[in-house]
């Protein structure tokens, strides 16, 4: 994945210039955030469960090689196929090959950010295969040629009216902004897709190592349909998405839905064990699980490995005041919000290094993360990594050098204070600066800057202790 043509700053300006979209995003995210808060408040022993969940993730990742082997063995003994994909290319090639070999015409997809990450749809479509997103939000994104703006709620940025217009335009139905009507339209449209599809493709919320089971969580039941009706089910799983046991899975599920939407449990939590067996009435004839690395093994074992604990609940996005202000698209990456600001530079490279700076380190994300990932701490580490490599802008490096020399020397610090006072005396107007130069411009675009006090605290202290 590479950064889009527009710079991050341009995307931010664009996002802020669209108040309607920003309102939709802020309202949607805040509603989810509040739902989460009330669901957690009535969840007994929330903190203990959270601690346990973190522990489960930590243990899984510390022995990931073992659990992955166990998982793969179990999947194979259930009759599934396992493919280890190093990167997006390998993964897409493998799925294309199956599709070609099995003469697949139509693919029904459940929502999966991982397949967004590797642009699987585009790759299949390039081989002439019809791919239909079956999650309502993703379907609307696909219809309108857009990108998901939130890892859980793909159309967080859209209003009901906008959705109604997309339907009217693309599906030739009369305009309506009533959710029930819109739902009915999609339901009718989707039934056919589910029945006709040759292949179902999904992500994986959790793989259970002890049994080789896959857990798929959806609210619409589309995950269940695409993993049971089509002949072939392909599940693409990030290599970190394992839990050791079913009991561990139950801990994670208790937190996942509550964190994501405030539900006690998602409407459909499916645990799928292998393809259809003899005498079974449903299930795919073939099950392929693609275990994808795509940069994850490079994070493992580093000081940033904690980000791999993430269960993609989206709670940190909903809590983040920066996300509320600019929405998901401005980040430019499939992963937005605090988790995206950490993941994007790690998975997709240095062109994403500005993202970790888009945070005030307010800590709202860490407070809600169900596996207690220290997101502000990871953002700081990424910033440190960047400055260590000397990649910060020149004004920043220069400024930091001057700042450090001055603050390590009280005499220089006193001098700097006096200089500031002098500048304030000459240039400030009624104790304020309304226009600042150079890198300070951004500040004065929206707020005034105070003049320095004409007597600093240390000067006052000196005077009073002498006098």
């Amino acid at each position, binding site marked *: 994945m590479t950064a889009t043509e527009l710079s991050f700053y341009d995307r931010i300006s664009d996002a802020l210039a669209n108040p309607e979209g920003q309102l939709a995003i802020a309202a949607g995210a805040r509603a989810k955030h509040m739902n989460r808060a009330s669901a957690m408040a009535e969840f007994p022993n929330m903190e203990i469960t959270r601690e346990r969940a973190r522990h489960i993730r930590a243990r899984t990742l510390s022995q990931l090689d073992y659990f992955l082997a166990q998982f793969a063995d179990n999947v194979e003994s259930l009759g599934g196929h396992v493919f280890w994909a190093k990167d997006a290319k390998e993964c897409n090639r493998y799925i294309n090959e199956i599709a070609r070999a099995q003469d697949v015409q139509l693919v029904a997809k459940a929502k999966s950010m991982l397949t967004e990450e590797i642009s699987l749809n585009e790759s299949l479509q390039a081989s002439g295969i019809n791919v239909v997103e079956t999650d309502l939000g993703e379907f609307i994104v696909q219809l309108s040629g857009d990108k998901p703006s939130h890892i859980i709620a793909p159309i967080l940025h859209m209003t009901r009216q906008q959705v109604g217009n997309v339907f009217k335009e693309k599906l030739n139905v009369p305009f309506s902004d009533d959710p029930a009507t819109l739902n009915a339209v999609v339901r009718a449209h989707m039934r056919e897709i589910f029945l006709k599809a040759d292949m179902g493709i999904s992500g994986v919320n959790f793989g259970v190592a002890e049994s080789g089971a896959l857990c798929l969580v959806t609210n619409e039941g589309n995950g269940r349909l695409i993993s049971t009706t089509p002949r072939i089910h392909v599940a693409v799983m990030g290599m970190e998405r394992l839990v050791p046991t079913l009991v561990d899975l139950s801990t994670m599920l208790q937190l996942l839905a509550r964190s994501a939407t405030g539900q006690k449990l998602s409407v459909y939590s499916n645990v799928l064990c292998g393809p259809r067996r003899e005498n079974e009435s449903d299930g795919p004839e073939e099950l392929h699980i693609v275990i994808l690395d795509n940069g994850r093994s490079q994070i493992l074992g580093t000081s940033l490995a904690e980000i791999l604990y993430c269960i993609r609940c989206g709670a940190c996005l909903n809590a983040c005041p*920066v996300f509320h202000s600019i929405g998901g698209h401005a980040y430019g990456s499939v992963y937005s919000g605090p988790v995206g600001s950490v993941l994007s530079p790690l998975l997709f490279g240095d062109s994403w290094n500005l993202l970790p700076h888009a945070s005030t380190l307010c800590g709202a994300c860490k407070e809600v993360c169900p596996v207690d990932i220290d997101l502000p701490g990871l953002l700081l580490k*990424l910033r440190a990594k960047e400055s260590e490599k000397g990649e910060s802008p020149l004004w920043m490096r220069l400024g930091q050098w001057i700042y450090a020399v001055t603050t390590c020397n009280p005499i220089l610090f006193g001098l700097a204070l006096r200089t500031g006072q002098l500048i304030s005396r000459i240039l400030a107007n009624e104790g304020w600066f309304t226009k600042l130069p150079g*890198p300070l411009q951004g500040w004065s675009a929206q*707020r005034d800057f105070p003049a320095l006090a004409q007597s600093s*605290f240390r000067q006052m202290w000196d005077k009073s202790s002498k006098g």
Partner: protein
Amino acid sequence: METRIANIAFVAFVAFVTHPAPVNASPRQKWTENSIIFQSIMNIKMTKTTQSTAQLLVTCMVDAIYPQVGTAVKSILNKNGCEMKFPPQQTCCAQPAFNAGFLKQARAIARHTIDVFTNTAGPVVVPSGSCTDMIVHHYPELLKSDPVYSLKAKKLSERTFEFTQFLVDKLGLTNIGANYNGRATYHPCCHGLRNLNLVRQPSTLLDNVKDLEQVALPCAEDCCGFGGLFSLRMSEISGAMLDKKLNHVEESGANVLIAGDVGCIMHMKGGLRRRGSNIQVKHIAEILNDCH
């Protein structure tokens, strides 16, 4: 001695029985409840061994822009039996470097601050949640592999307190006889709120200010968008966040906005001035020092 221990045990027991944390309490509430018990015990101890000397780490921004906040802190603590010292070699806590990822610079400044305070007596009081957080949580982490400074950092972190934390938790004060006529709303600054759990301390102190009418701030826990260098590097986002915060402040109907960090105060004050608003912005120490 034995009777004192018995007293403490008794108070602890009573506090425990009378203050059980509600079953459905949030972690923050539970923490608060537990610390009330803890404080009841500590207060007894504190009254016996009142702190006599404390060091003021005034923070660079108070020093340069809002010296009246430092003066207020000094006079409040003086009135409550604390002699305040101001080590004149102090400069800045290193947050601008640390938060930008310039760890080499941050370490140098941290070492300087540690040197300034190492041979001073008593607790170190800081009128800022984020600077306290820096010293208490980040100094030890930053210097953990420094053979000389790791221990010094830990020692300093153990004796450093945010201003309201010091008043309530260390001195056991909840009402300091302040009097402020106004309709106020309180913005909990992020680092103090989330990293130091400053909830109960400022609210108790403000509740006891005579004539102070308090109104709720909608979405109070949302960040104001300051974030230090963030406000320069991501000034547009910062400005958008500030706008939302100030809308909420205006919605609250308050005529004075109170906060505990002058960085956020400078940000919100600058934004309000740009809007032409009459709402005043004050550091909590300024409110508490008002005793007409």
